[in-house]
């Protein structure tokens, strides 16, 4: 227990977390501090580039791991199970309309790649290594949860014609080929092909300045989370806050045995738990606006970005690292 607090404390005082807090504070104080939109989008792509390429180069260095397939299957299964758990849990403790609950469930089944990036950096600080292909696992977990979430929403809305029902017109191609995923997987493959040589060539672009760029990005996420809270903070009733702060841990606990079964390293288990624990706030909201416009963004975004993301960044990541060490250490 003391360990968790020590780790969490150390984590809390890292520049990355402090810049998130700065952004949050600036937004709550109504400062106009903001990272311009196009730059924020580019930084997000940069993070995918860097994390994907490093993952691929890691794969190239350690050879193709037989556990890759197991890890990918685990990711897909987790991304399909967790929405059901989240749906049941949130239905039980809150009175939100079913369509909102389904949308939230889809977000928690899917993943937050920035949480994944932050967890990777935290592992680096602890000098724990992890499997390079966890990047591919992350990518595999984005879409299934959306389908399950839409399926759960289906019964919620009746009487709509077939053209407009939820799940109809869901933009599969756009979800699977969204820019972040293509960048992540593309950079992963290029990193794998070019290996250590390729990494040497672009190291001073994707490795050395990485933490600094991450600080800037988390500042922006803090700002967005803060503005979201100021705008929609009223949706945060006690039950949903409890959900948003415990569901990540539930997800991580569901993921841990999968990591153990597949035989991942301690770092790998920690990352799988982090993925399971994290909730999407980029890809899934865009998909929901198309396929399930009745669900309110003020609810799902406030929970995933305003509560769960900060929870994971501060308390969650150190906890999942401990879980990883317990399970596979």
């Amino acid at each position: 227990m003391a360990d968790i607090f020590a780790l969490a404390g150390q984590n809390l005082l890292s520049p990355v977390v402090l810049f998130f807090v700065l952004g949050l504070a600036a937004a709550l104080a109504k400062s106009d501090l903001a990272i311009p939109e196009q730059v924020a989008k580019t930084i997000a792509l940069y993070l995918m580039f860097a994390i994907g390429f490093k993952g691929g180069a890691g794969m190239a260095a350690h050879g193709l791991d037989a556990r890759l397939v197991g890890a990918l299957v685990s990711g897909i299964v987790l991304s399909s199970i967790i929405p059901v758990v989240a749906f049941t849990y949130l239905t039980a403790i809150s009175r939100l309309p079913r369509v909102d609950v389904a949308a939230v469930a889809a977000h928690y089944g899917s993943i937050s790649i920035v949480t994944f990036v932050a967890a990777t950096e935290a592992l680096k600080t602890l000098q724990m290594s992890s499997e390079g292909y966890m990047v591919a696992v992350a990518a595999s977990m984005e879409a299934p949860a959306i389908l399950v979430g839409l399926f759960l929403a289906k019964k919620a809305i009746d009487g709509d014609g077939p053209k407009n029902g939820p799940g109809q017109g869901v933009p599969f191609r756009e979800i699977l080929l969204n820019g972040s995923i293509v960048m992540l997987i593309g950079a992963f493959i290029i990193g794998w092909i070019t290996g250590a040589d390729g990494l040497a060539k672009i190291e001073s672009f994707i490795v050395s300045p990485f933490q600094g760029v991450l600080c800037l990005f988390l500042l922006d996420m803090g700002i967005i989370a803060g503005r979201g809270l100021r705008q929609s903070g009223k949706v945060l009733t006690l039950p949903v806050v409890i959900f948003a702060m415990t569901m990540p841990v539930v997800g991580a606990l569901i993921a841990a045995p999968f990591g153990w079964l597949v035989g991942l390293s301690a770092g790998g288990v920690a990352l799988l738990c982090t993925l399971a624990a994290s909730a999407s706030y980029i890809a899934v909201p865009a998909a929901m606006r198309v396929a399930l416009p009745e669900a309110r963004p003020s609810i799902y975004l406030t929970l995933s970005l305003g509560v769960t993301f900060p929870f994971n960044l501060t308390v969650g990541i150190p906890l999942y690292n401990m879980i990883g060490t317990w399970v596979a250490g």
Partner: protein
Amino acid sequence: MGCGVTGMTQTFRKKRLEIIVEEPILNRLTDALIAAKVTGYTILPTLGGYGSEGQWHRENALSRAGQMVTLVCILDESRVEAVLSAAYAIVSRQVGIVTLSDVEVVRPELF
């Protein structure tokens, strides 16, 4: 198709359709407009706004989910009905502001 004369240049009356719409459904909307045989449209970015859900600002949005764009389409009166109902089918479930106004153009054959 009405027509007027401004000084010496003859002008022709057309309609200007303006749709403020969420970016995630833009592709669907433009597909519908093209299917409804508009001759063209132009999309303008939007910085922010205010509506039933309160204020929003482009810089607050990580994903396209919270973004809106403005689509402008000049079209002939004869197309209005078809285009309007095509557009309406798309934006009715989503957030979207549709307005129509009169404009005059110089080259009527373009629309």
